[in-house]
């Protein structure tokens, strides 16, 4: 264990990135769970990542506007496709989401087949590289998160129906997946929503935010102390905090 590694000049920006991701993912996650389409985030996140991989293969400049446009286009395209399949075949929606996730992942492998750094890119897409976030990326993430939250508040998901929800979802996930990776996008969406299921409706968002923030902070601290990859440790820490919150709440409800 290395206590000197607890350096907030290193861990500060990644923690802010995590909190910004949680800001949109906790309320969206509750809706995902209610709609019973848990794997949609894996599918849409994977499609946004596919957009980045294709843009990279086409020689677009790394982290440029064109690359972001490609990622958003791919994610929105995926969202439109899934909104359409939900209308056409609601019964099979979960299975179709699963298939589209696998196809997007396999398309990524195919595009990267001739790229010697393909393995690194694929791993980045899954566990992200939260340590390297810079101020500019956080600024963009904050902007997109604010837009998504305003959209949720303004009732876009009710007013514009399916595509309103899927579209907002695609925007939020595109912004977050490139910083924290598919696994943390999934964990931030599902774990807080799942752990707070039995909470009173009024208290659910706050409890979700609190346990999510605790998970990110604990994960970053543990990854520093034990010198382990941050993204993977944070996913485990989120699950631990979620389990604890649900267990404590369950015991109180029994009494």
């Amino acid at each position, binding site marked *: 264990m290395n206590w000197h590694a607890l350096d907030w000049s290193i861990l500060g920006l990644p923690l802010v990135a995590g909190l910004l991701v949680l800001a949109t993912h906790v309320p969206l996650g509750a809706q995902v769970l209610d709609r019973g389409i848990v794997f949609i985030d894996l599918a849409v996140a994977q499609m946004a990542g596919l957009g980045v991989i294709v843009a990279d293969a086409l020689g677009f400049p790394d982290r440029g506007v064109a690359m972001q446009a490609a990622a958003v286009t791919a994610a929105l395209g995926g969202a439109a496709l899934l909104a359409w399949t939900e209308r056409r075949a609601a019964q099979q929606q979960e299975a179709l989401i699963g298939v589209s996730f696998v196809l997007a992942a396999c398309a990524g492998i195919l595009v990267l087949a001739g790229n010697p750094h393909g393995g*690194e890119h694929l791993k980045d897409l899954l566990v992200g590289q939260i340590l390297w976030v810079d101020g500019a990326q956080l600024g963009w993430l904050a902007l997109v998160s604010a837009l998504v939250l305003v959209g949720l508040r303004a009732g876009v998901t009710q007013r514009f129906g399916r595509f309103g929800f899927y579209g907002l979802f695609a925007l939020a996930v595109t912004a977050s997946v490139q910083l924290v990776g598919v696994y943390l996008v999934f964990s931030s969406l599902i774990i807080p929503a799942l752990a707070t299921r039995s909470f009173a409706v009024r208290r659910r968002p706050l409890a979700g935010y609190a346990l999510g923030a605790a998970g990110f902070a604990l994960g970053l601290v543990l990854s520093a102390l034990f010198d382990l990859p941050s993204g993977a440790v944070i996913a485990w820490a989120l699950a631990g905090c979620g389990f604890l919150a649900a267990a404590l709440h369950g015991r109180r409800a029994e009494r």
Partner: protein
Amino acid sequence: MAVVSQHKAFHYLYDWLGMKEVAVLEPKPGVEPSVSHLQQVLASLKTQPARMVIYAAYQDGRPSDWLQRNSGIATVRLPFTVGGSDGAKDLFGLFDDTIDRLTTATGTAK
């Protein structure tokens, strides 16, 4: 001249030009930098400052960019081999371009 390498790959270059590697961003060759290792690099730079952090053209520049933001030293992307940059079209170009990039980063005129 003291430098940081992202990846241990420049022994001959450092030996030739009398440069000194005071830290390496990767904890082991090929292993991605972790929080605790980055903290050690930042701490060691306080006692043993370096002029620049060097990475090869075939590597992901994000760890070096991170060090630039956190310590203020320059990043230098070296072609590493022929074809690694537009200037390194042949062996002569490789040496010229490498020296060029190093001197630009140190701000010393040739």
